């Protein structure tokens, strides 16, 4: 564990001494909860319509697939016409596109970013390497199955997928959300212990709270 994460006594600028335990003080340790659909079907449909029309993607290029996201923002492919846009912070985003292979070091940051996103949230795995390891099936540093660590709503295959494939994938995700079938976040909350156990199996120095949002 890093020295800055350990419990310690700190003297503030005003001379008052106080104790800081970063892992407990800076985070809320409440666990995720399963979000029940609205009581009325028609209300849930309205919610799902609104969710499907405002897919905001977290701008975190975790792998090489990120390079094909940039053309989507330009007039040629223009993903904005579907209500898709990119946001710089997890708090404003509801779709995490895992753009390719995840090294163990990145996986740790990805879990943190994912857990900081607000519900409802979705995960799209991009490229063969998120599916089964792809080119890196024998690499000692990349995970082979993304769905062991994060709940994946949709995969877009290819190495790497073209922008058209990404657009088709996003439209497919919209259909899933519209139909109320994109239940990844709830799956994560329901099987939280299983996901955590898998994550901790590959991330050895777990120096963060179990759920950090």
């Amino acid at each position: 564990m890093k020295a800055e994460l350990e419990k310690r006594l700190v003297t503030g600028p005003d001379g008052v001494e106080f104790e800081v335990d970063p892992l407990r003080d800076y985070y809320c340790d409440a666990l995720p909860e399963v979000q029940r659909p609205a009581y009325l079907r028609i209300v849930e449909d309205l919610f799902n319509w609104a969710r499907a029309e405002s897919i905001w993607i977290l701008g975190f290029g975790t792998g090489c697939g990120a390079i094909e996201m940039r053309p989507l923002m330009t007039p040629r492919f223009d993903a904005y016409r579907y209500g898709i846009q990119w946001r710089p912070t997890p708090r404003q985003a509801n779709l995490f596109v895992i753009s390719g292979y995840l090294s163990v070091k990145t996986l740790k940051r990805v879990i943190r970013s994912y857990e900081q996103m607000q519900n409802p949230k979705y995960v799209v795995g991009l490229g063969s390497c998120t599916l089964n390891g792809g080119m890196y099936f024998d690499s000692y540093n990349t995970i082979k199955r993304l769905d062991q660590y994060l709940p994946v709503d949709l995969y877009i295959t290819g190495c790497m997928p073209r922008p058209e494939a990404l657009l088709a994938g996003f439209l497919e995700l919209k259909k899933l959300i519209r139909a109320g079938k994109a239940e990844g976040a709830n799956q994560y909350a329901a099987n939280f212990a299983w996901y955590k156990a898998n994550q901790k199996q590959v991330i050895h120095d777990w120096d963060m709270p179990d759920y950090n949002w």
Partner: protein
Amino acid sequence: MPSNADPMSLAGVHARLQALFPLGDLAPRRAGLAFVDLPATCAPPALSHLRDREGFGHLVLLTAVDWLEEELFQLTYLVCNREARLDLGLRVRIPREPARMESIHDIWPTAATYQRELREMFGIDFPGSPRLDEAFILEDWRDIPPYRRDFDTLRFARENFAERPGRETWDPASHMRQRLYPEANPGMDPSVPGDRS
């Protein structure tokens, strides 16, 4: 001057260097690139000499090769003289256990980065090099250094990461043999994946 070679050629550089250090023979690769063996203790002074007196100011790379069979690491210092368009690779052989080499970060500050990588990926110690023990690429690595030859990356991946069932891997040579000469390998249907490697 022990040789009458062209002063601006690798042979000339080698001849002048040989007068100062116990150097091996020059192994030319192509015009402008050659490799030479030298003992580990001579490498830093030889590099200093090359940088200051011979114009080899550019450290192109510093890397290691694991000769597991001979229980040796080969460190390659590749230096370049831009004006004369010459590249000289210094090959230093050090034992695998304990793998230790003198640091050259005071000759080239950028060498510290290479040495951090070699420390992490090969487990070679460079005493005195800055931030040597900080994690560089890997985070909390617990196995033997991964670039060593005795580290089996496929086995490590199978043991540590869950695999999705259904992925098939063929050995290219035996797969092509089945495809091209099915009669020589009866009982093997080329359309059925087999021979998982």
